[in-house]
């Protein structure tokens, strides 16, 4: 049985070692400081993104090649991503025996970029150093850090990736990297770990927001895929609860077979 004195000295040694290892990692991060009154006041000078917005479902107005963008069905020219031969082959393999549905039928959120095109509203919140997008569909949230931090070199894969943003005049430019392999560029179109998404948010009139989304992926895409969305502001709307598991009767199984439970 070790003496209490020995335990103490061991603990101190461990703490010193941990501290030495931890110092460089901590030094890389910006020192967190509380927002100042000036930073809160500066928000008032930014374009007014506040409130609840809903995507319009007109023709998508995309460019960058033929394919299967979600908007392609709504009319207008096909606007899907243009794939490299290797990823076109992967897509072809998936489409040889296409699943009847995506995992969204099992309530798995689509992640980026699909989450930004849902038929539900989203709310923009601006605070010092951060733009937060509260997304009603699947009760999701995106955090866009506007405090000057760089994108991570080796991000953990996430459904929404890791986002940083900056203001270029009246446009919020958001760069996002590090996506989960469970997300797709478009339906049945996988991405590589090189996928990067740049979104340009701006007000085209007081209650209309446009988002130009550019997806690049050196492995998967032969050309950048650019698409545009238009959102309408609804001043009186609030974000509603959306618990997908509340009464989800749809499903897709491991073989891609879609199902529906109509047992009362």
């Amino acid at each position, binding site marked *: 049985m070790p003496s209490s004195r020995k335990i103490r000295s061991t603990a101190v040694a461990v703490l010193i070692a941990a501290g030495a290892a931890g110092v460089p990692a901590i030094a890389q991060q910006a020192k967190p400081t509380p927002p100042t009154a000036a930073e809160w006041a500066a928000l008032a000078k930014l374009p007014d993104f506040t409130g609840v917005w809903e995507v319009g479902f007109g023709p998508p107005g995309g460019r960058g090649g033929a394919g299967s963008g*979600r908007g392609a069905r709504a009319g207008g020219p096909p606007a899907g991503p243009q794939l490299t031969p290797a990823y076109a082959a992967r897509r072809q393999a998936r489409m040889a025996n296409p699943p009847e*549905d995506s995992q969204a039928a099992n309530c798995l959120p689509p992640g980026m970029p699909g989450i930004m095109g849902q*038929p539900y509203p989203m709310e923009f919140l601006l605070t010092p150093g951060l733009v937060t997008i509260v997304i009603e569909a699947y009760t999701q949230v995106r955090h866009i850090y506007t405090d000057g931090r760089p994108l991570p070199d080796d991000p953990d894969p996430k459904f929404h990736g890791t986002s940083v943003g900056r203001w270029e005049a009246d446009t919020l430019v958001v760069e996002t990297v590090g996506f989960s392999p469970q997300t797709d560029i478009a339906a049945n179109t996988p991405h590589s770990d090189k996928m990067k998404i740049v979104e340009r948010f701006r007000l085209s009139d007081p209650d209309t927001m446009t988002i130009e989304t550019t997806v690049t992926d050196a492995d998967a895409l032969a050309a950048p895929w650019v698409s545009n969305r238009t959102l309408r502001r609804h001043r009186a709307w609030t974000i509603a609860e959306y618990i997908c598991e509340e009464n989800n009767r*749809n499903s897709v199984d491991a073989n891609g077979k879609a199902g529906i439970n109509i047992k009362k």
Partner: protein
Amino acid sequence: MRIWSFGRLVIWSFAAALALSVSLSAHHSFAAFDMTKEQTITGIVSRFDWTNPHTFIWVDVTNDKGVTESWAIEGMSPNYLGRRGWSKNSVKPGEKITVSIRPLKEGKTGGMFIRAQIGDRVLMPTGTPTDER
């Protein structure tokens, strides 16, 4: 809840079909439904699920053999419909309802909501978004 003229009904049916073809696909595909068929059923509402990700109208329908079957009619979410004039009280148990649907495949007693009539009220899957909420 609105009462529609025939002309507006036609226009909104078209708009609704277009909107639905995009909207419903957000959560799931149409694989379970026969999108080439439209079927109309009449019966008595037994339950209305005002729930995410979809509403369900449960209708007791007496078939041509005199047997009462329970039909499950899937509609858009309360979030979507609630911003377009519907409420949890739009459909009530005990009401007689006539519903047009895209029927489920394999002869299952259910389908996807197209439109419905309860008395003189016509229920559409979409409408003009309201700024009430």
